[in-house]
């Protein structure tokens, strides 16, 4: 198994086509990452239709590369123009931009590049070891455990960064309801189709995701057309000095652990990881006063954590079929479209492909490091592309991407409708990621609940007699009610 994994990962290095593809996608991912508003999720949603005709490993490598490189690239604009290219880089602005204003933009970018690379590579290594182990545990799972696990995944939506807990849960439930549209799997009864037989097999994820992430973002960006962007000048990216390394190595390691752990949690992602990575860097720092004024520990803490979350988020996605973030929800769709069924069988029947994907992520981390060090200045200029040119192009890519997936115009209309729904949801403080995660998990919840009920002759409470299922349901309960209970206890103590 170990030898097979190593040789599969090494095979990436000797496949010129795959290496070329990863290089091209890294360039694209960095461009997507530096363009404010586009980000890894929108980029992956737009790119998914282009991967349809590719070999499964190449397709997932493309999506995973976009994920890691765009997550890193958000830091470039966060440092140079105080606008995070992705939400995961928001914490980088706290210290990155002040340091750049002091005339040390190159140093800030150098620290961001090195921290992101270490975070990314660390999480890929954890992914290589943790995923097969988790897959072995998941081998024991039956319907009650999967049902409880998906309920746990949905409960974690309460703590997604954007929106409030209640709003996120409402979004998640809306997403689960969307998954009930079409013919019911056991009885074949048509639900909410209103005579539209193109919906018989249900709503497909791709047009919905393009709508929720890309089209809704287009409408959000239409509110910012008059925004004037000011850039900080920079000569070249500087690698951290020995003193810098001495100052940040502990922070980087801590953030690697935090980021990977948070990434593994269902429905959490790089944004939460970077915020916690940043606040922990501040908490453990001897120079707390520097934070907010250009602390290199702050940059390292946020950047190592957000890139470490990328590998972590792939663990539940590939092993359990539960996406760890909006982008991994799209990668999960990519896996399913290409016949790579996430779960135990992926790690027993298609080990080689799995490790080739991991290997691609490793290579992508190295490539974005090189690009970050030698071409960050060039990429930063991309962020100055006028919105009135960029977003109409995104519109064209969105509608053609939505159409190309199944070759039906209904998907284009769905993408536009969900774009408008997503926009209004965001306008009122609802995040769209819970809708996407709910849509993916919806079928799993219902199907596994049905199977569990059949297993226990309709006595649903017997699900609680299964130890693992009970554990996940307790976690779900704690995830939902824990903060309320703890704040009540604290109030009583006070």
């Amino acid at each position, binding site marked *: 198994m170990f030898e097979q994994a190593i040789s599969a990962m090494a095979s990436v290095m000797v496949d010129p086509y795959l290496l070329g593809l990863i290089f091209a996608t890294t360039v694209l991912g960095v461009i997507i990452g530096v363009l404010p508003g586009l980000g890894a999720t929108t980029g992956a949603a737009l790119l998914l239709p282009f991967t349809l005709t590719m070999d499964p490993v190449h397709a997932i490598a493309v999506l995973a590369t976009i994920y890691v490189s765009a997550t890193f690239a958000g830091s470039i604009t966060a440092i140079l123009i105080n606008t995070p290219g992705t939400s995961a880089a928001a914490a980088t602005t706290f210290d990155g931009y002040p340091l750049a204003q002091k005339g040390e933009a190159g140093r800030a970018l150098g620290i961001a590049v090195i921290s992101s690379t270490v975070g990314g590579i660390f999480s890929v290594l954890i992914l290589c070891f943790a995923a097969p182990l988790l897959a072995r545990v998941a081998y024991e799972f039956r319907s009650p455990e999967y049902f409880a696990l998906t309920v746990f995944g949905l409960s974690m939506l309460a703590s997604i960064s954007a929106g409030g807990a209640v709003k996120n*849960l409402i979004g998640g439930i809306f997403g689960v309801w969307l998954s009930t549209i079409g013919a019911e799997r056991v009885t074949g009864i048509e639900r909410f189709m209103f005579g539209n037989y193109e919906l018989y097999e249900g709503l497909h994820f791709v047009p919905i995701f393009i709508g929720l992430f890309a089209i809704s973002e287009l409408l959000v960006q239409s509110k910012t057309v008059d925004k004037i962007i000011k850039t900080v000048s920079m000569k070249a990216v500087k690698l951290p000095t020995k003193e810098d390394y001495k100052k940040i190595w502990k922070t980087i390691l801590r953030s690697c652990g935090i980021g990977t752990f948070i990434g593994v949690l269902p429905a959490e992602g790089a944004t939460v990881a970077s915020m916690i990575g940043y606040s922990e860097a501040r908490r453990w720092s001897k120079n707390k006063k520097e934070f907010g004024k250009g602390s290199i520990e702050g940059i390292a803490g946020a950047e190592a954590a957000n890139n470490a979350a990328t590998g972590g988020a792939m663990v539940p996605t590939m092993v359990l079929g539960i996406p760890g973030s909006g982008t991994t929800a799209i990668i999960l769709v990519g896996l399913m479209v290409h016949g790579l069924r996430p779960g135990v069988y992926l790690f027993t029947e298609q080990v080689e492909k799995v490790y080739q994907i991991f290997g691609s992520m490793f290579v992508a981390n190295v490539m974005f490091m090189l690009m970050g060090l030698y071409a960050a200045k060039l990429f930063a200029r991309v962020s100055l592309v006028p919105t009135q040119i960029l977003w*109409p192009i995104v519109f064209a*890519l969105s509608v053609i991407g939505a159409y190309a997936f199944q070759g039906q*115009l209904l998907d284009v209309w769905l993408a536009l409708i969900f774009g408008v729904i997503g926009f209004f949801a965001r306008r009122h403080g609802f995040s769209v990621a819970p809708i996407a995660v709910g849509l993916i998990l919806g079928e799993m919840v219902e199907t596994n609940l049905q*199977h569990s009920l*059949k297993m226990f002759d309709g006595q649903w409470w017997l699900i609680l007699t299964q130890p693992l299922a009970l554990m996940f349901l307790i976690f779900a309960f704690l995830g939902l009610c824990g903060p309320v209970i703890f704040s009540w206890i604290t109030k009583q103590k006070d």
Partner: protein
Amino acid sequence: MKYMKNKIYLIPLILAIFSLSVIAISLQLDTSPEMIVGDSMQARSFPIFLMILKLFLLGILTYQFYKNKPKAVSLEKYHTWGSMLLFLLFYLLTVYTDMFIGIFVVIFLMSILWGEKRLWVAFLTATVTPGLVFLLFDFVLKIRFPRGILMNLYYG
């Protein structure tokens, strides 16, 4: 003033109406014979359960709004409403003429709507983007586009 004060409950109200409508539609769904469903659920049960859960959460959200009044949402600029209208125009042009004519017109108008003053730049973006995308999808990805005025000329 009173109207503005109550406006914050509009979103929970709309969502509650939506949930009640889903429950009403679910109750109209066919039921399966006992021998097929067995000890499991009817097709209507799960959506109804979801909507009841959603109504419960909407109750909590309304209470939260009552306790902490949410910030007022600023009205969108004409760019946003105009972009949505362009989506409608895209639908009409795609259905009655051709998808690529729709894309060309929408890109051109959206560029101008969003502030592009140079007509030639808007025209170039509107021409080159669909052109490149068409070449990529048709030649590389082998995807056939829906028939319309232009596609009929191309496919014959």
